[in-house]
């Protein structure tokens, strides 16, 4: 009977991690629904980006206040995980504070003391984050796309962190031997007096409860990630690694178009040739993107990585002047649609069954797409190198090349480029007149 808690712990641990692994598989399957794009080049540059931007948070601190608070929570999160390791070992083997014996009083005390200070700082930072989201009128948290689930999601994460940090401190405060040793309790020593007058049994029960809820909370949080914007804590790393390294102004040249244009311009090409007998008729590739499966896997990874901070939207010239376009919404819509496609595949034994919906129109309207100035402010701002602009451009390509659905004025501009070699209706023969006009 005495092994019951250990067995229960192991079952919970396996279930928690197992469910997480299942979701990671789903995540990876969904991302692979995207088209191929080669991001295996320039490995050292990619690694450097990941180290600087994801691990080093270099772009977060461009906005110093929220960046600084974020670093506290981030460092706290990473370091406190060492404590989680101890909890897991204790849970499996029924030991208590196993690292104390291994590391010795002084070092263990230093470690736990550091965790306690971090836990308190994280708590404070998280409270400030909550105030910023719910009390301060910060425009980027009040946008249309932040109503309902996205707003709640943000708050749930903050509540989770507040509870986990509190449990950690309570757990230490209600451990009498730990408190009496007087090492590593710089914060919990002030929490401990709250339990004065409780019987030793009650205190022990509180300690055990805090310990259990703490570890269960962590497992629940781990599994909450997949359903939340909080996935960024994992995906920020691959996302910065695989991000575009070319100059931001360089848009990709569609290869499928290059082939057709070359054929068109080839004087030797015979327009009346038929495909050879027996030759497979190739289905012409779709130009641009109308649904998530037309995007590449990095764009889909981007959508799962987005933590909806809204720095992109708050720097977007279209959004700042009241247009419908919000780069953050482009990313959120892409993820929502991708999840919908994923659920469809799950429900139909691994095959996607047409649902008469797509990313274009059902999620993202042409009005949003046409409001973009392609200025790259959103790409520059993103703390984890997400590229909303590439999705906007791919969807414009679909509108123009597959549907001929450009705004009328742009059709005129394009006709002029085609006929006169300039976006305006001027005669090509007048192209050098400027030289003699003064």
């Amino acid at each position: 009977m005495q092994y019951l808690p250990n067995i229960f712990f192991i079952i919970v641990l396996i279930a928690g991690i197992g469910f997480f692994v299942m979701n990671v598989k789903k995540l990876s399957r969904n991302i692979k629904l995207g088209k191929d794009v080669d991001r295996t080049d320039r490995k050292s540059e990619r690694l450097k980006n990941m180290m600087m931007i994801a691990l080093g948070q270099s772009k977060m601190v461009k906005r110093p206040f929220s960046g600084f608070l974020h670093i506290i929570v981030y460092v706290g999160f990473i370091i406190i995980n060492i404590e989680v390791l101890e909890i897991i070992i204790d849970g499996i083997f029924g030991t208590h504070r196993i690292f104390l014996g291994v590391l010795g009083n002084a070092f263990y005390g230093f470690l736990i003391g550091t965790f306690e200070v971090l836990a308190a700082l994280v708590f404070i930072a998280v409270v400030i984050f909550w105030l910023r989201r719910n009390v301060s009128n910060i425009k980027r948290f009040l946008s249309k796309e932040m109503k309902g689930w996205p707003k709640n999601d943000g708050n749930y994460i903050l509540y989770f962190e507040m509870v986990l940090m509190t449990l950690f401190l309570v757990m230490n405060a209600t451990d009498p031997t730990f408190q009496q040793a007087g090492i590593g309790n710089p914060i919990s020593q002030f929490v401990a007096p709250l339990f004065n007058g409780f019987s030793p049994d009650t205190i022990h029960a509180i300690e055990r409860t805090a310990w259990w809820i703490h570890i269960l909370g962590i497992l629940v949080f781990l599994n909450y990630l997949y359903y939340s914007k909080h996935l960024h804590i994992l995906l920020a790393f691959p996302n910065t690694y695989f991000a575009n390294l070319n100059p931001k102004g360089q848009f990709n040249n569609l290869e499928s178009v290059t082939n057709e244009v070359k054929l068109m311009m080839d004087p030797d090409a015979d327009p009346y040739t038929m495909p050879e007998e027996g030759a497979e008729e190739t289905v012409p590739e779709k130009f641009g993107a109308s649904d998530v499966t037309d995007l590449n896997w990095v764009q889909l990874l981007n959508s799962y990585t987005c933590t909806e901070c809204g720095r992109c939207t708050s720097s977007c010239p279209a959004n700042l002047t009241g247009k419908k376009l919000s780069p953050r919404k482009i990313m959120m819509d892409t993820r929502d649609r991708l999840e919908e496609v994923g659920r469809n595949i799950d429900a139909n034994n691994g095959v996607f069954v047409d649902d008469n919906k797509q990313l274009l129109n059902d999620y993202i309207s042409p009005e949003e797409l046409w409001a973009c100035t392609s200025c790259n402010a959103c790409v520059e701002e993103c703390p984890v190198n997400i590229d909303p602009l590439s999705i906007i451009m791919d969807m414009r390509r679909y509108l123009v090349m597959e549907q001929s659905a450009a705004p009328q004025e742009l059709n005129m501009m394009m006709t002029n480029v085609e006929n006169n070699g300039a976006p305006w209706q001027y005669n090509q023969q007048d192209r050098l007149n400027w030289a003699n006009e003064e």
Partner: protein
Amino acid sequence: MIVPTMADMIAQGKQPEVLFWVGAAGSYDDRAKKISRAFVKILHQAKVDFAVLGIEETSTGDAAKRAGNEFLFQMQAMMNIEVLNGYEVKKIVTCDPHSFNTLKNEYPSLGGKYEVYHHTQFIQNLISEGRLNIDDTTLKGKRVTFHDPCYLGRANEVYESPRDLIRRLGVNLTEMKRHKETALCCGAGGAQMFKDAEPGNKEVNVLRTEDALKTKPNIIATGCPYCNTMMTDGIKFKEKEAEVVVKDIAELIAEANNL
């Protein structure tokens, strides 16, 4: 004004040092033509051996590409590349950041590989090679703010060349709150220049002009013909034409050197 064409040059058996890519705005837009002429005056003063394509130049296809028409873009690109490669062009300079970006970044994989410079980079080189000096007395004391063109700044990370030239004018350079990486677009990019804006509560160029006016400038300097149009319209909208002018850096240098 003497503006030799590649065709003339080749007929005389000469290969110029650099091709000046004028761009559609620089060729046809009344305001932008002044920038082209100012730049040519600078080239003449520095005795640069240059040529233009003239009537053989056609749209780079940039606006078509940003509008989503990849077909039209690549058709334009391949026509231009055929002409440029035919003349064995190695080095190109342009006053238009959109042409600069497209020629530099998007032509190479289609077979057009050139050394491409924005005119502010090119002028900076002329100065460091000792071929050009900027008179820092003519405009001394003027308050100047610089609006970063998106396709020069964020798109290609050229932030210092234009600023270096402005400082050499002896003027007082005052930055807007949003500048360099965080600069706000003028509203013309992504083919917006050629269409009306979507419904909203303000025009982007007005917002950007307000940014600029907060620095209380005498001159708003920029390095893009489209930004120039947008900021000039913004100044008109704000009824500040009497106090503030919008100028390209090439125009400021030509003015400083009394060209």
